[in-house]
């Protein structure tokens, strides 16, 4: 992660905001051993790329990195990293928050939680849909 942030430093950068999403060790079904991330190859990359471009239209940004892991990840492991660089902090905070809200509701990833040896598909959350709706215009 330090490397991703370092890569964003440069001419005029005054603010870097990062978001790291980690595998929580608790779920409604009990203690989580691991999650399994499935995705739609091709569409994933295109969707994330389009979201980064959209963020660049909305805010004045100097660098954006989005990384998302797939496959089996143990509790505590990082799943997703969003890092945004800009001249001032407001744009960086807003864009990072926007990118996560869009990623959570529009990027084709699906997550299973392993609890006591049984895998449960995670249900989409209404709160994520509401968070993404904030950015509609």
């Amino acid at each position: 992660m330090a490397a991703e942030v370092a890569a964003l430093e440069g001419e005029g950068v005054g603010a870097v905001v990062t978001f790291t999403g980690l595998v929580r060790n608790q779920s409604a079904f009990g203690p989580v051993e691991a999650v399994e991330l499935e995705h739609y190859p091709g569409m994933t990359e295109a969707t994330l790329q389009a979201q980064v471009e959209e963020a660049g239209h909305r805010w004045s940004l100097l660098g954006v990195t989005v990384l998302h892991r797939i496959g089996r990840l143990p509790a505590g492991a990082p799943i997703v990293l969003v890092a945004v660089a800009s001249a001032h902090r407001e744009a960086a905070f807003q864009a990072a928050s926007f990118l996560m809200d869009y990623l959570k509701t529009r990027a084709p990833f699906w997550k299973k939680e392993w609890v006591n040896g049984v895998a449960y598909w995670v249900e989409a959350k209404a709160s994520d849909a509401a968070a993404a709706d904030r950015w509609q215009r």
Partner: protein
Amino acid sequence: MITVLYFARFREKLGRDQESLPLPSASPVTVQVLLDELVARGGAWSDVFGCERGVLVAVNQRMAQRDSLLCEGDEIAFFPPVTGG
């Protein structure tokens, strides 16, 4: 022919991740026409696609709607609401 992909819990319930199908012959050929064909298979197909809520669709890797048009060679994907991040 068109390629149809299934992801996540749909893939598991249907027991397959993709298939090639002839482009439906209705006119206009929409996503809904394809969905109707899949539901008509019955069983798990009817369970998964019989209820419109919670079925998302992408055409050529872009989000699409029930009335989106399909063409020869298209890649159509069906999946539940996303849960990454």
